[in-house]
């Protein structure tokens, strides 16, 4: 005799801590197994792309802070690079180095958040998150002493950066970079073979490399599936071509591999920072750019390897001080494309882990 089962719909979110914001997932269950999943987004939609069309190029930089509010520096950098490409501005070497230093500190801060919350979702409740926040806090202090803000930094500007670093930055940054490898080793010892994390995330939410490429995923999600692809290496911007670092990749494409890739990226970011802080040249950090910037008619697409993946800005100029089109290629949103394939056949708690391993920020998903 076979049991007759009724499909059952579970709403995850939009108001739930495990959804990292206001993300809603409609899961259809057969018993405990997920047989259908549909994502519902848009609760945080602020229409940034339309708003940007009514403002000048410089006025749009603060909007980019509020996309992925956990890595504002990277967003500023990608947008400013797009404008510089459109106008043809060369940024001085010191400015380029400062951008790399800030972007890599931001990557550590973002991954700290991602790893901490991922461990929490696996069941290693809250302690890793608090450890990670300790390091993140120091990085945010560095941002605060440089530009006055901790999260919405508005630091990278068209033609350079808003302020050169204060004298107390260098000692603090070097002390932190010296301390970080020890801390990371501590976390690796405590988390990498942590039974709770391994049992909960091994072979869960598998993303095969073919699907990862076809579905346009990027960042740790793509690399976790074993695809060696990093914009910092493939299409170097700023001064990444002069710095020495490795690209970690996974082998199985499951949640644990994505977690491993992020852990290793912490180490690689520290490596980049060690070199960049030593190599930081003197000279001006920025060039003068007119406030009412009027780029020539044309279009530009610039991209960076943001902590979450490939962040690109596509700008179309009609010669006026406002962009005619301002498009954000947001990694969080596009990385959600294969989510349904990844969660089919899993249980609800596994779907939560899978979502956590993608590492989304709703400010960037909804824009």
């Amino acid at each position, binding site marked *: 005799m076979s049991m007759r089962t009724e499909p059952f719909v579970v709403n995850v979110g939009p108001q739930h801590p495990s959804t990292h914001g206001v993300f809603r997932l409609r899961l259809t269950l057969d018993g405990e197994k997920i047989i259908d999943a549909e994502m519902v*987004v*848009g609760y945080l939609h602020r229409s940034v792309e339309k708003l940007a069309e009514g403002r000048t190029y410089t006025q749009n930089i603060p909007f980019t802070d509020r996309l992925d509010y956990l890595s504002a520096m990277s967003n500023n950098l990608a947008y400013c690079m797009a404008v510089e490409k459109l106008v043809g501005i060369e940024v001085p070497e010191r400015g380029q180095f400062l951008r790399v230093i800030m972007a890599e500190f931001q990557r550590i801060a973002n991954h700290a958040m991602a790893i901490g919350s991922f461990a929490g979702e696996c069941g290693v409740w809250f302690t890793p998150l608090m450890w990670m926040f300790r390091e993140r806090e120091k990085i945010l202090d560095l941002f605060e002493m440089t530009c006055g803000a901790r999260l919405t930094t508005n630091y990278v500007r068209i033609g350079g950066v808003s302020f050169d670093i204060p004298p107390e930055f260098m000692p603090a940054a070097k002390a932190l970079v010296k301390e970080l490898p020890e801390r990371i080793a501590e976390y690796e010892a405590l988390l990498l073979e942590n039974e709770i994390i391994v049992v909960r995330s091994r072979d869960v939410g598998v993303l095969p490399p073919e699907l990862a*490429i076809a579905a346009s995923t990027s960042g740790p999600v793509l690399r976790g599936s074993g695809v060696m*692809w990093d914009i910092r290496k493939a*299409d170097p911007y700023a001064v990444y071509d002069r710095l020495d670092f490795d690209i970690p990749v996974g082998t199985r494409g499951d949640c644990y591999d994505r977690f491993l890739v992020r852990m290793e990226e912490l180490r690689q970011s520290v490596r980049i920072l060690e070199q960049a802080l030593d190599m930081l040249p003197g000279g001006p950090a920025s060039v003068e750019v007119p*406030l009412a910037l009027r780029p020539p008619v044309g*279009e530009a*697409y610039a991209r960076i390897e943001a902590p979450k993946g490939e962040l690109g800005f596509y700008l179309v100029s009609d010669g006026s001080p406002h962009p005619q089109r301002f498009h954000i290629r947001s990694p969080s949103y596009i990385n959600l*494309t294969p989510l349904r394939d990844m969660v089919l056949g899993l249980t609800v708690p596994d779907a939560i882990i899978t979502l956590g391993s993608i590492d989304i920020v709703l400010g960037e998903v909804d824009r």
Partner: protein
Amino acid sequence: MSRLLDGLEVGERIGQRVPEAVVEATPQWVVAHPEKLVAVTTYLRDDGELDFRFLIGVTAVDHLDHFEVVYHLQSLSHNHMLTLKTRALDHKNPEVPSLVSVWRGAELQEREVYDLMGIRFAGHPDLRRVFLWEGFPGHPLRKDWLEMPGGLTPGLGRFPGED
């Protein structure tokens, strides 16, 4: 360094394979005819020398009399890029074919373009609004959405104090 492929060269190659598909080719981009778009993109994806297996992004631009849909393509193996465009000439009812059958990555992005720009993607498996709710009036990224009195569009035409 990721190399930007010469649009003229790629346009010629596409023209040999899919006749009458290229509307315009410049060094920066290739414009394909919407009717031939699926054949063109399948060729770009499967050709060994081009190998555009990775779709970076899909977006659209409102040019007042027509829409332009822009695809940024990337080859992971050869590390080169291409900007492919297509034009929807009917500004009232713009429609271009969906590329979900070629790249899965187009799925969410075409929904986004449909939601905000109002371009229909024929053949999309699930073409619904994604950020806004069903019944929202119009498509906000269009230039004629919210026209101000006197034909003005939001934003300053020039700066105060600027000649």
